[in-house]
């Protein structure tokens, strides 16, 4: 089965894994921060932030991809700035695919983490502060460990969403074999060619295997973490 995958198909699979891993890892700190802010702080523009975070969940992915293109494309404000000052180009690169995946997965990640932050008793944080711990230390030693199950769940959800992301990705970075062609894009490309069903089906099986493995891993990790946290 696996021997039957062409080099190009293998590249699509590994690219998808890399894009999803990078998207998840880099958006996680921001996801934790935004989830904490939404759960705990009362500030002006809280509802606006909440709406912005959730927008990619509601908008057609092609719209999100297009918005990314006009913002982070070579001609976009942010894209121009990044290109000129840091030499970073996102459009039509795998890094752009990671950005698109991260944006699309962000609402799911934030929701999962936010729910666990809300479940952490602020009284425990108060207790830590009376024991002499400054706020950041309280966050690192009490809040963060207790939110860990939510962070794990959020990261796995985000990874899964990133693996399956298609619409925004293909709009923003196109479908260049070996460069921006992720697993879903590759399946789509095969399906566009007459007689490509067989090749598409092999990739579909790969997608199913990866999804199943991720699900089992997430179950196992969250159970292990929950056991540690509950203090049993």
């Amino acid at each position, binding site marked *: 089965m696996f021997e039957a995958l062409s080099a190009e198909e293998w590249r699509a699979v590994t690219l998808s894994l890399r894009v999803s891993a990078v998207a998840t890892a880099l958006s996680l700190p921001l996801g934790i921060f935004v989830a904490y802010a939404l759960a705990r702080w009362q500030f002006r523009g809280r509802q606006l932030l909440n709406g912005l975070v959730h927008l990619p969940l509601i908008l057609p992915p092609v719209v999100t991809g297009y918005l990314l293109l006009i913002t982070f494309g070579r001609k976009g404000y942010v894209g121009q700035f990044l290109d000129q000052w840091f030499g970073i180009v996102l459009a039509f690169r795998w890094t752009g695919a990671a950005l698109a995946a991260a944006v699309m997965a962000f609402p799911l990640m934030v929701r999962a983490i936010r729910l666990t932050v809300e479940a952490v008793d602020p009284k425990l944080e108060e207790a830590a502060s009376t*024991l002499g*711990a400054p706020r950041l230390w309280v966050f690192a030693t009490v809040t963060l460990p207790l939110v860990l199950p939510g962070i794990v769940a959020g990261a796995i959800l985000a990874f899964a969403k990133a693996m399956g992301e298609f619409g925004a990705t293909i709009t923003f970075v196109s479908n260049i074999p070996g460069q921006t062609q992720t697993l879903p894009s590759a399946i789509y490309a095969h399906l566009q060619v007459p007689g490509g069903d067989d090749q598409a089906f092999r990739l579909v099986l790969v997608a199913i295997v990866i999804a199943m493995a991720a699900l089992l891993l997430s179950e196992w990790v969250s159970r292990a973490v929950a056991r540690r946290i509950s*203090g049993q």
Partner: protein
Amino acid sequence: MTLSVALHHRFAEFTLDAEFEAPGGVTALFGRSGSGKSTVANAVAGLLRPDRGRITLDGTVLLDTDAGRMLPPHRRRMGYVFQDGRLFPHLTVRQNLLYGRWFAPKGQGAEMGRIVDLLGIAPLLDRNPGSLSGGEKQRVAIGRAILSNPRLLLMDEPLAALDEARKAEILPYLERLRDELRLPILYISHSVAEVARLATTVVLLEAGRVVASGSAAELLADPAIAPTMGLREAGSMIIARVAAQEEDGLTRLETGGGPVFLPDVGASPGAMLRLRILAQDVMLATERPLGISALNVLSATVEDIRLGDGPGAMVRLRLGDEHLLARVTRRSVRSLDLRPGAKVFAVLKTVSVGRENVGTAS
């Protein structure tokens, strides 16, 4: 050590307007639920910012709203023991105990081994908080607060969530803290029994105001304050020395008013004890009663009488250097012609002073 507190804070239902000083020892902040006790504790710890107020500890300003100063909780070094323990569920008992150590000034304060022994929690060190009983949790919470090397221990109803057996289990540990560590404690409670066992100073809070404050022995024997304590709960506190253990299972104690016999108190001769004697357990006689089963007949002098709204009356007696409170009827006050200065005999049944009413004194 002196903690000075002046607070003004408006709530939806009532206004807290309290001012008091806590010297060293155990200062009990006593009042019914809803009298504002926990608000005071939270303001002292820095967890609540009152509308107006000033709190100082030995010259260190913790809070001064007029000057716009408020020290954050982590810089106040108040060891707070909460009613609900609040142990960190993801850490072991040992890690919980050591949590405050990171921030405590180095080289001072109680040593871990000593506190662990004092609280009897050595067998629990590697357990997780989720597997501890209520009483064990509270002992660990107390140890954690002490090991953060605080300047003051704040205890907000630390026993309120426990059943009677667990309370009886923890009270001796609190007495040891008071007598052995010499750590000043602000003890918040609505239980007269706990106050009588532990307090050296009492601040009485009613509907957000301090209605009385002073030494525990004086205040508990004040007939005017007895109604606030609850008539059935009212009682005085006297210090006694264990004289001998008698063959028939009784313990003989020396008090200012003569010998007192109690059921075995479980203390060796020479030990100083603190007895709580409920006002309703004390009977008065103008002549020494003969042919009576009660073993304790103490000669005393009437100092103060307060007639209640109902048929009852509270009588404060002087017993050597100490006070005894007796609850009798107005009719008896009249028929015995009790008045300040009168010589009387206070009668106390041996069995009326239970183990829970006997604590240690330093």
